């Protein structure tokens, strides 16, 4: 049931995302019923919670790391969850009528429900890590909701600011929680709450506290992170009512009270938290007195009231904690209703500017009444709920003041904040509802639909009810909530309207009368709409923007330094780093002095590499002006490499290398045509001194790199390895996998998953090449006839002779000879594939051989001629190959074995003899098919580029390979 409460809103969010963009009623019903279901579920759990039980749901996830999905419902969590769910239901009703038909309402409700789920998850979490995850989710959903009207610049800016501030705080919180978990030895909330003494005695305590408090202050918009909240007022008003007064911002103080048993009771706690709270209380209340924007007043007032709660928590006494929880509830009710009223006013008049609004009392009397009552609660007028918690606050200010040596500071601060609070409430009511009716409003207002008034009215009724009969209404709930934080030993307190004449009452009276006097004085002097004195010059939001801009520009500079835009410099830096990294092991051991004897030198091997080295160096110096020569020399190096593999007992590598050499050569030959002509000339060879210096630098780097590789290779070759892996594969290859060719067995069996990944990559690369070439536009000069051919006539000739038995051109004899090559190569490639398990061969080599045979047909007969006779569909080959390999792997599931487990069955066939039918052969066949497909797709797509232009003018006789 507990899990359902958190799960339902997320499911609802998902569902709302899929109803049509204009199904506003469906989405609203969905959201409303979801919220209602959560309310009912919570109500059903109330008897258990009221009895003092903690309802739990634990799903172990990674018990060794103390991570679990854990929900935990005690009295305090119940109170908050109920607030979130019921407020959610009211806001949904309100939003249904607030949102205009042009808005995408399902998107709104989807985010709103997701937020509700995240918020419920936060308050119900029984594991701190999980709590942080939900906490971050609330930040994220809040971002989406503030930026709901994403086409508006201020919405985007406000959302961004809120996200950066709260996410930064979330990171800090995560760090604090991780340290807390390390201190306590677990993330379970109960463990942490029981370990208060251990935590306070630990040397990490200050760091833990400060990190967690930073998270709390950012979330609850407390000084010095308060600036994001007014900017977040760009959100739709239901969002402001729900997130930015009643729930999201309350998450910070919620957590502070939640962790109260674990963290409270030190000087640091007292000074940091009451300091931030006190500053927010005064700054918020003072600034609210000067705002012109209706929602701006409410935003600053929220900062101030949350500051009050924070201050109470910082005062560090059980009674203050009770007062804090009480004020959380009260603030949520009156502030949400005020936001709703503000939304109604904006909805009806088209403006939120207090300077333009006047006399709305005559046009919308019900709204005026509702708002006035709510504002009175905000000001702390008697018979309202705000009065009760404010009285408690005043009483605690006196107690805490005398206890901490701040005898006058706390009461004075409290009274001053009370004065401002009365002043801004009064100003709001006076400027908006009283006086003559404003004449220049964008729209002529009237009472809104009942759907908009109802939620606000319900909340106001709750304010009054609690204010008049506190002990009968909210008393039991508060008792249960306080008990679950403080334990059974609750302090004595009495919820009543009348306590007799006392110091707090005196402070209330001073605040009320002082507020009236302050407001009247201000408006007499015409300073009602002045910029906030003293504070307007220290606009935190602007400072945030400046810091933001500086950070972004600075990181741009650093990035420019670390990642230069020139590729050559980047490559150089990579090589320098690699050289340093490669040096480190050598510095430790030195190159020489290995334990392995040198193998006897064979002069022919030396000669072989003399040629190889000459080719490599030659290619390095010829690659700029003599591409073909460089390509041939690189091919020579490839051949020498291939012979080296064969020499040192690696026939599989030699086979694969020689096949790859062939296709690579064809590939690059096909590409050469599209590169710009560059003729060797004296003028081009003349170099500036800078270029010469650059070349010298590169030469040094190349020499060091090459020398380093040499030394490193030599050092390794002279030392014996650990020898752990190798014996395993050699011993188990025949016994377990039934194959004599260990390399192949490793590829298709032991490391089959790796190979599966690899062929997937090859397939993806081939398709990428194909896709890139579809949009390929060659440089104009490459399209002109080259020195060696007259393109147009060659195409025409090819088309004219497409039905001839032999293609036109000089290669007729070769073409005749190549024809039997295809079936022969096919047989050879299949032979390589089948024998691979026991002898050199396998799917990779087989596939490459087959592909080169097909390519030979293309080269000798011409693309047009070949494709009028032979249709290959490389994309299908790739797909079938990958599916075959996957099917071979999946076949193991039929025997309840893991993916890619090899299955074997020996079958005796007449004439052929014993044959091992193994799933690995099927797997290798998949590799074979994919390699054929990928190689052909790449080569043929490149070959097709020569046909690009003619295909636009002449309808080809042969259908092209694919839609190249």
């Amino acid at each position, binding site marked *: 049931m507990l899990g359902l409460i958190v799960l339902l809103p997320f499911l609802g969010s998902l569902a709302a995302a899929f109803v049509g963009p204009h199904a506003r009623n469906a989405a609203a019903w969905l959201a409303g019923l979801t919220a209602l279901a959560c309310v009912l579920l919570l109500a059903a759990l109330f008897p258990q919670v009221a009895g003092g039980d903690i309802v739990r749901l634990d799903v172990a996830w990674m018990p060794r790391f103390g991570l679990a999905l854990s929900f935990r419902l005690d009295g305090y969590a119940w109170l908050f969850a109920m607030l979130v769910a019921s407020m959610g239901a009211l806001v949904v009703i309100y939003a249904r009528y607030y949102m205009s038909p042009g808005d995408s309402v399902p998107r709104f409700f989807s985010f709103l429900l997701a937020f509700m789920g995240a918020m419920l998850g936060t308050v119900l979490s029984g594991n701190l890590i999980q709590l942080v995850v939900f906490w971050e989710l609330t930040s994220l959903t809040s971002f989406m909701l503030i930026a709901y009207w994403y086409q508006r610049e201020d919405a985007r800016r406000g959302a961004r600011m809120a996200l950066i501030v709260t996410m930064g705080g979330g990171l800090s919180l995560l760090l604090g929680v991780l340290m807390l978990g390390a201190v306590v030895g677990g993330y379970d909330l109960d463990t942490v709450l029981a370990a208060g003494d251990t935590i306070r005695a630990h040397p990490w305590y200050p760091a833990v506290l400060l990190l967690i408090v930073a998270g709390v202050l950012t979330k609850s918009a407390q000084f010095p992170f308060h600036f994001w909240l007014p900017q977040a007022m760009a959100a739709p008003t239901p969002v402001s009512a729900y997130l930015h007064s009643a729930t999201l911002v309350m998450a910070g103080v919620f957590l502070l009270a939640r962790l109260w048993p674990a963290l409270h009771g030190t000087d640091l706690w007292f000074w940091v938290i009451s300091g931030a709270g006190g500053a927010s209380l005064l700054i918020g209340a003072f600034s609210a007195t000067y705002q012109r924007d209706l929602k701006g007043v409410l935003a600053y007032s929220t900062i101030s009231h949350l500051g009050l709660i924070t201050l109470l928590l910082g005062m560090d006494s059980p009674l203050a904690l009770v007062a804090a929880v009480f004020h959380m509830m009260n603030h949520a009710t009156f502030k949400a209703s005020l936001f709703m009223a503000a939304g109604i006013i904006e909805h009806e008049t088209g403006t939120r500017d207090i300077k333009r609004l006047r006399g709305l009392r005559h046009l919308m009397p019900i709204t005026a009444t509702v708002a006035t009552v709510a504002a009175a609660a905000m000001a702390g007028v008697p018979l309202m709920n705000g009065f009760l918690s404010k009285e408690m606050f005043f009483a605690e200010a006196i107690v805490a003041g005398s206890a901490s040596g701040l005898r006058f500071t706390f009461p004075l601060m409290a009274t001053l904040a009370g004065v401002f609070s009365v002043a801004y409430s009064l100003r709001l009511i006076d400027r908006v509802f009283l006086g003559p009716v404003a004449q220049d409003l964008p729209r002529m207002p009237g009472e809104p639909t009942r759907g908009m008034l109802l939620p606000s009215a319900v909340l106001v009724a709750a304010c009054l009810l609690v204010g008049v009969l506190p002990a009968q209404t909210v008393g039991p709930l508060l008792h249960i909530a306080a008990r679950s934080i403080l334990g059974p030993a609750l302090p004595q307190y009495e919820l009543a309207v009348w306590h007799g004449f006392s110091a707090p009452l005196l402070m209330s009276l001073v605040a009320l009368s002082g507020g009236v006097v302050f407001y009247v004085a201000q408006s007499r002097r015409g300073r009602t709409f002045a910029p906030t004195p003293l504070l307007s010059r220290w606009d935190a939001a602007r400072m945030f923007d400046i810091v933001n801009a500086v950070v972004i520009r600075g990181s741009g500079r650093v990035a420019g330094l670390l990642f230069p835009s020139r590729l050559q410099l980047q490559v150089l830096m990579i090589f320098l780093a690699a050289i340093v990294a490669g040096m480190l092991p050598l510095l430790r051991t030195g190159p020489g002095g290995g334990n392995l004897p040198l193998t006897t030198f064979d002069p022919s091997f030396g000669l072989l590499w003399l040629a190889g*080295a000459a080719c490599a160096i030659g290619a390095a110096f010829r*690659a700029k002006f003599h591409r073909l020569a460089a390509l041939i020399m690189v091919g020579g190096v490839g051949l020498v490499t291939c012979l080296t593999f064969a020499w040192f007992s690696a026939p599989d590598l030699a086979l694969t290398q020689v096949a790859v050499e062939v296709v690579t050569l064809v590939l690059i030959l096909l590409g050469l045509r599209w590169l710009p002509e560059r003729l060797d000339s004296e003028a081009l060879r003349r170099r500036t001194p800078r270029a010469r210096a650059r070349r010298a630098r590169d030469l040094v780097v190349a020499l060091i790199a090459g020398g380093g590789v040499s030394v490193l290779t030599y050092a390794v070759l002279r030392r014996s390895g650990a020898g752990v892996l190798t014996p395993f594969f050699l011993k188990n290859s025949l016994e377990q996998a039934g194959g004599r060719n260990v390399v192949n067995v490793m*590829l298709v069996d032991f490391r089959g998953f790796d190979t599966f990944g690899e062929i997937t990559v090859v397939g993806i690369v081939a398709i990428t090449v194909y896709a890139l070439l579809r949009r390929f536009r060659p440089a104009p000069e490459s399209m002109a006839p080259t020195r060696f051919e007259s393109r147009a006539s060659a195409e025409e000739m090819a088309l004219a002779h497409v039905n001839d038995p032999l293609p036109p051109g000089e290669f007729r004899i070769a073409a005749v000879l190549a024809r039997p090559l295809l079936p022969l190569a096919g047989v050879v490639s299949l032979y390589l594939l089948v024998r691979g398990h026991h002898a050199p061969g396998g799917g990779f080599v087989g596939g490459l051989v087959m592909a080169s045979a097909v390519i030979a047909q293309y080269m000798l007969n011409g693309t047009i001629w070949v494709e009028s006779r032979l249709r290959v569909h490389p994309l299908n080959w790739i797909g079938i190959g990958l599916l075959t390999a996957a099917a071979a792997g999946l076949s193991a599931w039929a025997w309840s074995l893991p993916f890619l487990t090899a299955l074997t069955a020996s079958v005796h066939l007449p004439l052929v003899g014993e044959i091992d039918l193994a799933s690995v052969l099927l797997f290798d066949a998949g590799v074979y098919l994919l390699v054929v497909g990928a190689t052909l797709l790449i080569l043929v797509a490149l070959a097709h580029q020569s046909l690009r232009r003619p295909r636009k003018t002449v309808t080809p006789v042969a259908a092209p390979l694919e839609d190249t």
Partner: protein
Amino acid sequence: MEVVYALATGILAGAGVWLLLRPRTFQVLMGLTLFSYATNLFIFGMGRLAVHRVPMIDGGAASVDPALYADPVPQALTLTAIVIGFATTALFLVVLLALRGLTGTDHVDGREPEA
């Protein structure tokens, strides 16, 4: 043999690095090819050099003496590296062709250097 092998690997790597640092795409392509030869040889060399010890088991499964066979692990790794190397070479070639088509130059930065 070890000396020759090590020198050969080093020369291929050095030539590859030199070409990879050059400004023209074709040079970089050739450099990439040479450098991957060097890398493959280097990885292959991790199995140490063994002549006439092909890792194909002959005889029964019970009597396998690891000392009689070359190390198959680097061979298997190198084999996949060779095929992947072909695929990346192809991709790089096509990217450099597209770059040339789009920008009209074969400089790696997509524009000719000033002065």
